[in-house]
């Protein structure tokens, strides 16, 4: 895996002229995609909540938009909300709404990260430290 060849984040796809500056710009398309919804019908998704598809979407399901199907395809392997947002090139807020629909319809399951109270678990630290040392 290339760690040094290009330090810039994944480039945006073309067709994103509505983003005016690299850091901030008007966003219309994501609202249209969620039909104006800003909160998911179900679920509470943090950026590192992990999502995995429980079944496949063949393309004929009523009520699923192309973006829903893309997410289901992507989540055949577990992905974080942040990764899904990055791959679909959509704001995380939009992805949360779409994931809420999929959760509601039973296409995906979600694992939220551990609460901060679990940060006392020594085994976690040991596993992470061992993993980092092996990098």
């Amino acid at each position, binding site marked *: 895996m290339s760690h040094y060849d290009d330090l*810039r*984040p*994944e480039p945006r796809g073309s067709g994103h002229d509505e983003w005016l500056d690299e850091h901030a710009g008007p966003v219309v398309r994501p609202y*249209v995609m969620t039909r104006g919804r*800003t909160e998911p019908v179900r679920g509470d998704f943090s*950026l*590192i909540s992990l999502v995995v598809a429980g079944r496949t979407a063949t393309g004929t399901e009523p009520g699923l938009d192309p973006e829903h199907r893309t997410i289901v395809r992507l989540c055949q392997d577990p992905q974080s909300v942040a990764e899904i947002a990055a791959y679909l090139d959509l704001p995380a*807020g939009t992805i949360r709404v779409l994931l809420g629909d999929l959760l509601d319809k039973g296409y995906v399951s979600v694992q939220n990260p551990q609460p901060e109270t679990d940060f006392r678990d020594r085994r976690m630290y040991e596993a*992470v430290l061992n993993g980092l040392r092996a990098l």
Partner: protein
Amino acid sequence: MDYERSERTPAGRKLPTAIKLLVAGGFGVGKTTLVSAVSEIRPLRTEEFLTDRSVGVDDLEGVEEKNTTTVAMDFGRISFGEDYVLYLFGTPGQERFWFMWDELAAGALGAVILADTRRLADCFPSVDYFERRDTPFIVAVNCFEGARTYELDEVRLALGLKPEIPLLLCDARRRQSGKEVLITLVRHAMELNSRTPADA
């Protein structure tokens, strides 16, 4: 390393525990470089709306005219076998995106604050923020060429860092250096979290 790509993932299969670390610091201090040096994937970029989660957008009429903006964050991933996956988020540098920090810091195990000795003051806001929030943090001085080298003690004094806060030099471009930074942070978080509340 990656999730087992060959295996199907039936619903209910145990997913790894996701852990979040932050890389903070001033504009252009090397946050993305550090994330990139240790990540197993090329850094990805995710965006959050500036308005809806912070201010609350309840009036959805006239959405087309609304000047809704997003803020971008870079992140990378390191997975450790089946059990844990670490996500490293570079916090947005500009202070106008301050509110995003609360969402990023929520549930974070700890933070690396990158400092550049030519512009030490740039990391004051980060130090203040994580101190106030009680998020375990360390400070890594990113060594740019041409920067006067300071003794770490001078940096500690300038930043007003308590003696127990780890402070080290790093080169954000080098994986081994980034790895050392992360190990220092995780060890520090472990120490803080293994104290009983009465000690704290």
